[in-house]
């Protein structure tokens, strides 16, 4: 049963309709600034999305950060905004059928179970895998990767084996492997990046020795936006008899791939970056791997029979889901996938490509601003991380907030990558379906005013820079 059939709320239905894609373009949006005008026009023509209608589906966008200062939310790589449809689905569960799943025999519990289990099918369809029994619910990407490390990793890896990671990885795809490596005397190898933060396939090839059992790689860097060539990577890794885990936390909201056909062994993602609630994520694993993996969390639901001394495990996927699962959150994720599925993947990709291109144009005109990552925009997603002169990214973020602009500043949970880039921190603007060309123009204006503020007050002094600043500064894209 499709989750949407369970909705009785007319408001919710109206939101669904209002979110439907339309061939109206975003040309009607107000424009600010003339920068990159040609590309701007091209970006509009390329996108078939009605961004104003999309924006109307996100209640958070209706607010002003302070009086007269509307919110410009360009921090979607941290977490996406949530459409009304998702809010309503969670509300419906909590209001109308807030029952536990799997064991109740009453009407509400059956309804909750059906809704909850139905989300596995939606996730399977989104990922392009047939068997939804391969979809395990977790708290998020981090817990999903930890599950693989602690279950598959401990059961499989021996002293002398190796795990290959890339320098692009988020801490969530680093630290679980560090712990496992230390525990099992396993070597951690890193694939070097090129100078513009792309994954070097020759370096990957060199790293793939017979001892490598797993390559864990991001689908899209949360800092540089780098999109590694997954198809080629899976091919190379499988040819050497190793497994591939993809951290799709960043990539999935932007890039829909058929992961079943691609043949990845494990994939992890979070609901909250995909327009869903926090507290829900997914581990996909190939069934034969999941069947052989021991559970790592124990208790109710994950067992079929328990006596005073022993227990017998439930089948996959429930074997890995001890305790009452995050039901409301999973149902919210299901609604988020329904929301996302209304739009053509091509339209979304075109729109975000337009935003990315425009952001590179606008930010590229600001003196002293350096954009990190691939110069070739075909190899990156809708994320623009940058530094501006010696201004600390935290100061940039705080001052941009005065303009209503929400960005992220810091190391973005990717410290080894920042070491590789030669900087302690960066500022990051990350875009989603609800962002507009006009918002990027306002970002450009705000950044220029901040640059002038610091220049006016610097009296020719240079901002104190890290003594160890061996910056590998990348050319602007």
């Amino acid at each position, binding site marked *: 049963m499709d989750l949407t059939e369970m909705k009785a709320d007319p408001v919710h239905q109206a939101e669904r309709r209002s979110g439907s894609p339309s061939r109206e373009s975003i040309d009607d949006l107000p424009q600010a600034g003339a920068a990159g005008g040609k590309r701007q026009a091209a970006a509009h023509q390329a996108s078939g999305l009605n961004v104003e209608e999309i924006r109307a589906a996100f209640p958070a966008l209706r607010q002003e950060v302070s009086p007269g200062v509307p919110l410009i939310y360009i921090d979607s790589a941290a977490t996406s905004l949530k459409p009304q449809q998702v809010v309503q689905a969670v509300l419906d569960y909590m209001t109308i059928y807030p029952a536990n799943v799997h064991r109740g025999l009453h009407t509400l519990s059956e309804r909750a179970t059906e809704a909850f289990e139905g989300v596995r099918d939606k996730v399977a369809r989104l990922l392009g895998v047939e068997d939804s029994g391969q979809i395990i619910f977790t708290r998020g990407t981090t817990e999903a990767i930890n599950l693989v490390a602690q279950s598959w990793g401990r059961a499989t890896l021996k002293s002398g084996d190796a795990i290959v990671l890339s320098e692009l990885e988020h801490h969530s795809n680093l630290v679980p492997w560090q712990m496992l490596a230390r525990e099992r005397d396993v070597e951690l190898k890193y694939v070097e990046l090129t100078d513009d933060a792309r994954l070097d396939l020759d370096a990957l090839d060199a790293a793939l020795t017979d001892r490598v059992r797993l390559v864990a790689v991001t689908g899209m860097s949360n800092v540089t936006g780098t999109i590694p060539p997954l198809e080629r990577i899976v091919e190379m890794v499988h040819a050497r008899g190793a497994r591939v885990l993809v951290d799709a936390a960043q990539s999935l909201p932007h890039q829909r791939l058929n992961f079943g056909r691609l043949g990845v062994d494990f994939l992890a993602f979070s609901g909250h970056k995909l327009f869903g609630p926090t507290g829900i994520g997914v581990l996909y694993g190939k069934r034969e791997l999941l069947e052989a993996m021991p559970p790592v969390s124990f208790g109710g639901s994950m067992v079929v029979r328990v006596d005073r001394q022993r227990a017998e495990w439930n089948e996959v996927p429930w074997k890995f889901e001890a305790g009452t699962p995050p039901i409301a959150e999973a149902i919210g994720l299901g609604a988020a996938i329904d929301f996302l599925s209304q739009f053509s993947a091509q339209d979304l990709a075109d729109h975000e490509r337009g935003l990315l291109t425009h952001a590179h144009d606008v930010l590229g005109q600001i003196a002293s601003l350096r954009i990190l990552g691939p110069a070739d925009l075909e190899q990156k997603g809708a994320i623009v991380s940058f530094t501006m002169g010696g201004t*600390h990214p*935290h*100061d940039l973020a*705080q*001052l941009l907030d*005065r303009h209503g602009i929400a960005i992220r500043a*810091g*190391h973005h949970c990717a*410290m080894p990558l*920042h070491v590789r880039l030669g*900087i*302690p*921190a960066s500022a990051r603007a990350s875009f989603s379906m609800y962002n507009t060309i006009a918002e990027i123009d306002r970002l450009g204006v705000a950044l220029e*005013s901040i640059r002038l*503020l*610091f220049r006016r*007050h*610097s*009296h020719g*002094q240079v*901002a*104190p*820079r*890290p*003594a160890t600043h061996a910056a590998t500064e990348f050319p602007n894209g």
Partner: protein
Amino acid sequence: MDDPLYREEILDHYYSSPHRGHLESPDLVSDLDNPLCGDEIHLELSLGADGRIEQVRFDGHGCVISQAATSLLADRVEGATLDEVRHITPVDVVKLLGVTLSPTRMKCGLLGWKALQNAVAEPGPARE
């Protein structure tokens, strides 16, 4: 843009603090960093014959708040006794900055204060 946090006085302390630099023979030194931000403070103090702090110099890098707060604090403690310095609280630092800080930025604002407290700490278990 008028912003109390990024007002002229604060930016002056950030860009051209009279306390930035090193002492020839410091009596007390302290190093502290915040790996989450990449902020670093190296602090040097010299003491007079009366035991009061004579000069404070610092080096380091980071956001405006961490660097300016350190400079303001250096102004404040020259001439003070070590015991007076030990009684300076985070609230005093916020008063020096003249703005309220969000919990996240409080860590930046207090980096120099912590380095200072480490420098003047009584012998014993080192404070953080």
